[in-house]
């Protein structure tokens, strides 16, 4: 069996779907944030796999940016969770409805 790019794409799709299941089903907001990070990592694998196949480096550069943006987004998300927890809210996505109301 020879290793082609399709193998890596399968892996990336599977990881993305696992992450998506986590985001949709879990109730603890920290686990939801973790699953979002997992989805970003899965997309990163796709980018690097294609960058390997087409022999360009631009895919890897984009992964660099995606990593930076994901880091910033998780920092702000966690700060929100900490601030809400200090105000007495449980880390539960069903309870966090302040913006909705």
């Amino acid at each position, binding site marked *: 069996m020879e290793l082609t790019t*399709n193998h890596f794409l399968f892996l990336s799709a599977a990881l993305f779907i696992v992450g998506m299941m986590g985001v949709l089903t879990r109730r603890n907001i*920290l686990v939801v944030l*973790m699953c979002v990070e997992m989805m970003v990592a899965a997309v990163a694998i796709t980018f690097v796999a*294609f960058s390997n196949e087409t022999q360009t480096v631009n895919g890897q550069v984009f992964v660099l940016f995606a990593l930076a943006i994901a880091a*910033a987004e998780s920092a702000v998300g966690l700060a929100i969770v900490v601030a809400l927890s200090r105000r007495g809210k449980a880390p539960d996505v069903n309870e966090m409805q*302040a913006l909705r109301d």
Partner: protein
Amino acid sequence: MSWDVIFFFVLAAGTLVGGIATVAAENPVHSAVGLLVSFINIAGIFVMLGSEFLAVLQIIVYTGAVLVLILFVVMLIDPENLPAFYVAQPLQRYVSLLLGLVLLLEIGAAIITRTAMEAIGPHSPAWIESAGGNIQAIGQVLFSEYALALEIASLVLGVGVIGAVVLGVPERLGRMAGLEKATISLGHSRGLNPQLPAGHKFETPMDIPAERYDVPEGPRRVIMTKSADEYKHPGETAQGTRR
């Protein structure tokens, strides 16, 4: 079976097991460790795909910083109020699992029937070797074609840092901006005026009233566990000065 294939399957298995552990673990700490395992295996996959720089970067940035942050917050959040496990009822859970599998099969079909791209890119392995390696290649492309994106990314990171600080330590910012706050003192030497000026009632910029504890109306005060008269100078007791 060449070594490549074996490595790929080991790493892929590790990644997916870590991912499933993240989603399925009861304890959020176990979820975080599952994600850690997943990320390390993803770094291995990056090395297989020829980008060792991204592999090391993934470990330093993603596991070494972002995941540590998530772990800290998991530790700091009060474990009494942890929510129940899943959002939905059991039937919906299984249906969502089924739909996920169906989606995976669809994407799989799309992957199999795609027309593979040819190696048309300019950055062939020979070019990368002549540039000096993977880092130098990424550096050359990053600072020439994507220089503007780099500056914007740095701006985004800066905004992220400022946002996190503003959301995370509002009291300290409030104090620096001149608002007052009460302190709980387990002992104060004589001479401190226990009445602090009236402070603001709410503490965060979001101005949501606290539900877990009562914020007292009116002037804030210092809560002292001993009355001020019980503090003596060192060596001085109620019976007189002790040598």
